[in-house]
């Protein structure tokens, strides 16, 4: 087991994931758990709950045809907050599409979130991307892109940039285990190792990449062991154990900030829902599998932990739920009433300034009779 503050070991071949919280929410004997102040501990709970409630509502909206697309992170919420908690605001995060909690933790509002999903006129990315492709430069949250793995070398480059600039900012990049098969993962890991980039490479190993199970993704004994190929520490952590993730992240961040280079973290968790709202997992996996993982739910485990610390009460939970739900419903209502970005905004932001050929295309578009109203927005 890993003691906090000690150097992170290179994951061995058959390591059980590092864990601090037992199933009942108590701290496993012999582990040196990070201290989370009460207020923060509750904030983390509220955050995970918010992701759960938001996800739930958004999937409903999607099923009702009011959203074009959605992606759940049910069961993986601890990876969001465990990753986000140890960072400073001047650190950077390169999310994949399944870590809304990182946005929320750093201050992204439900309003922004819902507006992005609607691609409406108040969407922070101006309706330019599919739902769940957020971006928040005021939070150092980098724009999400769909192609799997592309963010990894970028995150390493940003960390190299911080180092070149003699700043001690670090970057955190998320990706799934499927992404470890891409060339992008490899070149990023290799650059990180060679340049000792202050970067934390965080793999949410949730067992599935759409219909492809982990054992068809790689023959290596774990994801963490891949760190050896790049001369950096790799660590397997229980991805449903918020405290364990915080512990390994704190270590990794401290070493990165101290100039000791990158860390690969493999958080072992499970994708309980479908890949996305377009997916039907019953076509390829045994429904007993997600059921089993329900028992390891990270939110419930954290709840038990708070209970063991006498922080959790049903009333508090209900209060949180109600607050979140109210905010959420208000945002959904508002988002649905907002219109679409104006057609002419199509041409903004391709370049810093509108070049003549786009000027012309814009003029041409605006001179035409308006086409039927587009989808999205409402």
């Amino acid at each position: 087991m890993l003691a906090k503050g000690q150097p992170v070991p290179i994951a061995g071949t058959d390591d059980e994931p590092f864990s601090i919280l037992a199933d009942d929410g108590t701290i496993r004997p012999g582990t040196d758990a990070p201290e989370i102040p009460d207020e923060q501990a509750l904030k983390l709970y509220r955050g995970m709950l918010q992701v759960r409630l938001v996800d739930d509502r958004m999937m409903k909206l999607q099923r009702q045809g009011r959203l074009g697309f959605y992606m759940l992170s049910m069961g993986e919420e601890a990876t969001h907050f465990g990753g986000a908690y140890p960072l400073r605001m001047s650190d950077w995060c390169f999310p994949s599409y399944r870590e809304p909690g990182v946005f929320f933790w750093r201050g992204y509002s439900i309003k922004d979130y819902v507006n992005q999903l609607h691609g409406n006129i108040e969407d922070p990315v101006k309706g330019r991307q599919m739902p769940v492709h957020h971006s928040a430069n005021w939070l150092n949250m980098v724009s999400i892109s769909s192609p799997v793995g592309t963010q990894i070398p970028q995150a390493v480059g940003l960390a190299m940039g911080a180092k070149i600039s003699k700043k001690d900012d670090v970057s955190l990049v998320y990706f799934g285990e499927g992404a470890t098969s891409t060339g992008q993962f490899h070149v990023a890991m290799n650059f990180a190792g060679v340049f000792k980039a202050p970067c934390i490479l965080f793999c949410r190993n949730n067992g599935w990449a759409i219909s492809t199970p982990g054992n068809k993704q790689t023959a290596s004994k774990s994801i963490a062991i891949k760190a050896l190929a790049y001369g950096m520490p790799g660590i397997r952590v229980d991805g449903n154990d918020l405290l364990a993730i915080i512990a390994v992240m704190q270590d990794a961040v401290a070493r990165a900030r101290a100039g000791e280079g990158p860390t690969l973290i493999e958080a072992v968790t499970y994708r309980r829902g479908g890949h996305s709202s377009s997916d039907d997992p019953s076509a390829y996996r045994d429904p007993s599998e997600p059921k089993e993982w329900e028992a390891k739910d990270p939110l419930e485990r954290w709840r038990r932990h708070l209970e063991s610390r006498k922080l959790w009460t049903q009333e508090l939970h209900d209060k949180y739920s109600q607050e979140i739900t109210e905010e959420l419903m208000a945002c959904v209502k508002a988002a649905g009433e907002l219109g679409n970005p104006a057609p002419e905004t199509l041409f903004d932001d391709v370049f810093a300034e509108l070049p003549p050929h786009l000027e012309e295309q814009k003029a041409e578009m605006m001179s035409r009779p308006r086409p039927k109203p587009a989808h999205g927005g409402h």
Partner: protein
Amino acid sequence: MPVWNIIQAVNDALRIEMRRDPRVVILGEDVGKFGGVFRATTGLFDEFGGDRVFDTPLAEAGIIGSAIGMALYGLRPVPEIQFADFIYPAYDQIVNELAKFRYRSGGQYPVPVVIRTPYGGGIRGGHYHSQSPEAYFAHTPGLKVVIPSNPYDAKGLLLSSIRGEDPVIFMEPKRVYRAAKGEVPEGDYTVPLGKAKVVREGSQLTVLCYGAMVHTCVEAAQLAEKDGFDPEIIDLRTLLPLDTETVLESVRKTGRVVIAHEAPKTCGYGAELAAMIAEKALMSLEAPISRVAGFDTPFPYTLENEYMPSPDRVALAIKQTAQF
């Protein structure tokens, strides 16, 4: 004859060819048991087993690179790239390797790999599930580029592609995957590569298009018709090699050209069509060549209907060009 959609036609072509030719194998992300995210390979894993229909790790360069290796060994791989937008990690394997293998080896090593990939907008997919990268491939010597617009052609062109000796980029118009229905003969038949098809005869002007845009152009023609216009519509079917003859014959007849595609206008395939016409039939032209294309912006999300050439927009171009 059964009435099928494009997915069914593609699926049938793959099944027919796999039955006929034991060298045909299918690989890609989620194409096995699951049958592909668009379900184009449904049932093939069950019929042909995991040796011939298999899921790969998430790496397009690996999919195409390994398919090249299989082709060198004598197989006939038909890899699927889940969305054309995700083909770029394999770009090096496609443009520097697949396309050049036969040439660079002095003819020693043909690599007949047929890459199937859904392309195009109109499914609310934003700029990573909507791209139309055909011009990149048409500009790459050594590749054939095939884009069917309907189930009949999809099946016949895919069978021709797999039976051919050259690498083919086979792009499937995902917007009309299910919407484009039509009669498809059961059993074996082929549609030759390199032959365009006049889908509507007309006297006044030539509309050149392919893939999903054919449906848009047919709708546009119906709109224009109401106002008394009479466009000829050509479905190119194969972009490379292009059926220059059919195109020029029509242009010489009509003297006016509208080109429609979803991809960004600048350096899109329409540029080649216009340039070819300006080279070979300039003196027949009675009006400027009009290109109706995606704008030179990344593909948007909310405003995709503004971005994509609509029947209205094509109809307007038809009228303006006809009246020039």
